[in-house]
């Protein structure tokens, strides 16, 4: 009797309880940086991307209008927020602070904290400071989470530190290395490296092998317990030793008790490094991988930029929840955490050769692939976004191996097929998704922008001088300092970043000379006309095909917070290597023979991205901000009033 009563009571409770919420439908978004529609079509036509072909048959394939400028932080911010730069405030990789006239990253910054001076160069950190995400507007996954849709967002660019979310997210582009830079590699050698001081994105350290060993240091962040002034500051350092085999080309490493042997030409696994700021009290944890390039006759050792340790990120939150990067590490092993892991700078600086770079990019792809396989296998419901950097970074660095027209063309059959190989890698990922997800899941393959060759560079700042818009104190002397040579009393316009052009406006710039209002407007129109009329005297081409005025062409409350004009270069052109950081080289137009040979920082109409979906595409010319609305619509969530796009996917 007693059991019968209990049974009936349980049954009644079960019937009265609300039905458990149905699992949210699965939507997978594969975000492939730099996937180009023209290259994709050519590979599909050759039949080498069968899985992407199958996905297109299920739904459709369209070009996806990118942002202006078509730079990753801007484009991904358009996608994340459904707005344009006027709404989210990210206009370039680099912007300038109008008050101080100093440049910084546009999408995130790390601000110094407050300290209490203890005298004799010692300080006590007392809080404040830390990383700040400068992108404005709510991310689409934050909106979905509010509606109860579970989300996993893997390495979304322009999301460092990751915006608060109950879902899982791991930061991507914008995440610094342990030194607070986009990536600073180390190269230890006893050979004379030409222009070692000039190599950007890395440091060359002279070492001297002695008695069969090399003693050197790993260089971490600035010691937080020391004053930040030049005289006082010191990097945290860790000693390490390399024992050279007397006969064979191999060496034994000892890094804080971790011992391993590398053959010449071999990469280490991830090595943990603990930088101790105060013994037994405060440590900064990092990871890095060594590459023993050569043992003799000259010793050459490369070390990746030291990355934030995903197991112990400390004050640098790289995931939500904060513990998720640790959990991922438990599942997958250590992985690259800095923004774009492919070390393009080591190739440009001549530290790694192109084949070594290619090998390193394979490690990155393999790591991402391992993480993707884990993510897709454990994907239960809701939205999964997964980002791949491999196509973009290899398209930048290997374009000159597949394009015989390129001024920096190189012959190498392996590398000539490198970009194609990366597209095959993405095809494989799509195959895995098609095989794993149920029929009714939505699969979207998309990119932020496409690609173009980078044949010729335009030194925009030098052009401004040539046309009388800017003036140098002494035109005969051109240093490499950030606007160090400019006579601001005679400068009306200056260029910063990849595509930004600013007016030296009175009341905004510290030494502004152009009056706001009519004079400002008149100058903008004159600049626009002159930019579009620019001619490269070497070939008669027009290097600029589009000029965007944010106040006229963008939407949202931040239209006036970015550059006054955004310059769109025509096919084959880009800003010069020196102009983005305030330099004024003598030549305005020059060939680009650097290894960085493909690019996309140009007229956005020339480098659209890709949209492939398992659902019909319903807009003729969908844009990144339309896709944001479409993803919300997958769950019946309406777009917010700030979003400027429309749904671009049809019914299931």
């Amino acid at each position, binding site marked *: 009797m007693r059991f019968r009563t209990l049974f009936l009571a349980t049954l009644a409770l079960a019937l009265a309880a609300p039905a458990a919420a149905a699992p949210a439908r699965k939507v997978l978004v594969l975000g492939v940086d730099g996937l180009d529609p023209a290259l994709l079509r050519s590979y599909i036509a050759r039949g080498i991307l069968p899985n992407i072909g199958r996905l297109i048959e299920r739904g459709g394939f369209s070009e996806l209008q990118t942002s202006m400028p078509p730079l990753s932080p801007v484009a991904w911010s358009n996608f994340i927020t459904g707005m344009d730069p006027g709404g989210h405030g990210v206009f370039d990789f*680099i912007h300038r602070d109008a008050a101080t006239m100093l440049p*910084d990253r546009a999408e995130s910054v790390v601000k110094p904290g407050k300290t209490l001076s203890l005298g004799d160069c010692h300080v006590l950190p007392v809080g404040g400071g830390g990383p700040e995400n400068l992108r404005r507007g709510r991310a689409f996954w934050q909106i979905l989470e509010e509606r109860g849709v579970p989300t996993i967002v893997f390495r979304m660019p322009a999301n460092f530190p990751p915006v608060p979310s109950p879902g899982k997210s791991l930061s991507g582009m914008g995440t610094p290395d342990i030194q607070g830079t986009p990536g600073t590699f180390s190269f230890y050698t006893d050979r004379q490296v030409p222009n070692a001081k000039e190599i950007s994105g890395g440091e060359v350290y002279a070492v001297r092998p002695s008695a069969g060993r090399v003693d050197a240091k790993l260089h971490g962040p600035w010691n937080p317990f020391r004053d930040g002034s*030049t005289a006082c500051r010191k990097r945290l350092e860790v000693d390490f030793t390399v024992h050279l085999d007397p006969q064979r080309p191999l060496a034994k490493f000892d890094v804080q008790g971790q011992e391993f042997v590398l053959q010449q030409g071999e990469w280490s696994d991830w090595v943990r490094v603990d930088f101790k700021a105060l013994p037994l009290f405060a440590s900064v944890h990092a990871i890095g991988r060594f590459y023993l390039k050569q043992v003799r006759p000259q010793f050459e050792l490369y070390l990746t930029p030291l990355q934030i340790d995903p197991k112990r990120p400390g004050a640098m939150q790289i995931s939500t929840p904060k513990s998720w990067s640790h959990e991922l590490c438990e599942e997958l092993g250590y992985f690259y955490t800095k923004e774009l892991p492919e070390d393009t700078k080591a190739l440009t600086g001549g530290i790694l050769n192109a084949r070594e770079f290619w090998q390193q990019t394979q490690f990155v792809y393999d790591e991402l692939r391992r993480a993707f396989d884990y993510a897709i296998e454990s994907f239960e419901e809701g939205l999964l976004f997964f980002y791949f950097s491999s196509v973009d970074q290899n398209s930048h660095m290997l374009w000159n191996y597949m394009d015989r027209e390129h001024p920096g063309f190189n012959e190498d059959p392996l590398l000539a097929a490198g970009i194609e190989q990366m597209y095959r890698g993405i095809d494989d990922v799509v195959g895995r998704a098609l095989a794993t997800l149920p029929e009714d899941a939505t699969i979207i393959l998309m990119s932020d922008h496409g690609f173009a060759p980078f044949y010729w560079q335009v030194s925009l700042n030098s052009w401004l001088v040539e046309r009388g818009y800017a003036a140098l104190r002494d035109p005969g002397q051109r240093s490499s300092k950030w606007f160090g040579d400019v006579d601001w009393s005679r400068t009306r316009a200056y260029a910063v970043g990849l595509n930004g052009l600013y007016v030296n406006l009175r009341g905004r710039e510290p030494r502004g000379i152009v009056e706001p209002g009519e004079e400002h407007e008149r100058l903008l129109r004159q600049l626009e006309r002159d930019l579009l009329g620019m001619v490269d005297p070497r070939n008669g081409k027009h290097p600029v095909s589009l000029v965007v005025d944010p106040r006229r062409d963008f939407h949202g409350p931040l239209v006036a917070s970015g550059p006054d004009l955004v310059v769109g270069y025509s096919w084959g052109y880009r800003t010069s290597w020196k102009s983005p950081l305030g330099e004024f080289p003598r030549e305005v137009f020059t060939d680009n023979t650097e290894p960085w040979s493909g690019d996309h920082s140009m007229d956005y109409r020339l480098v659209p991205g890709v949209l492939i979906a398992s659902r019909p595409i319903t807009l003729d010319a969908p844009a990144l901000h339309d896709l944001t609305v479409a993803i919300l619509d997958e769950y019946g969530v309406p777009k917010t009033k700030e979003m400027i796009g429309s749904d671009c996917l049809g019914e299931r």
Partner: protein
Amino acid sequence: MFGSRIKLDRDLLRKIEMYAKIAGYSSTQEFITHALEKEIAQLEQADSDEEIRKKLQGLGYIS
């Protein structure tokens, strides 16, 4: 005035006194303070320039 005594070469001190007068400084101390402040500001600026470049140079797009 708080501070430490600094030894200067006699010839240099003579020059400092002369140029402080020519440049219209009210005292040699004012001239020396100004010169040192200018030098330090320049060093600090150079340092912050270098720091900025380093912070941004890891970006593949610039050199």
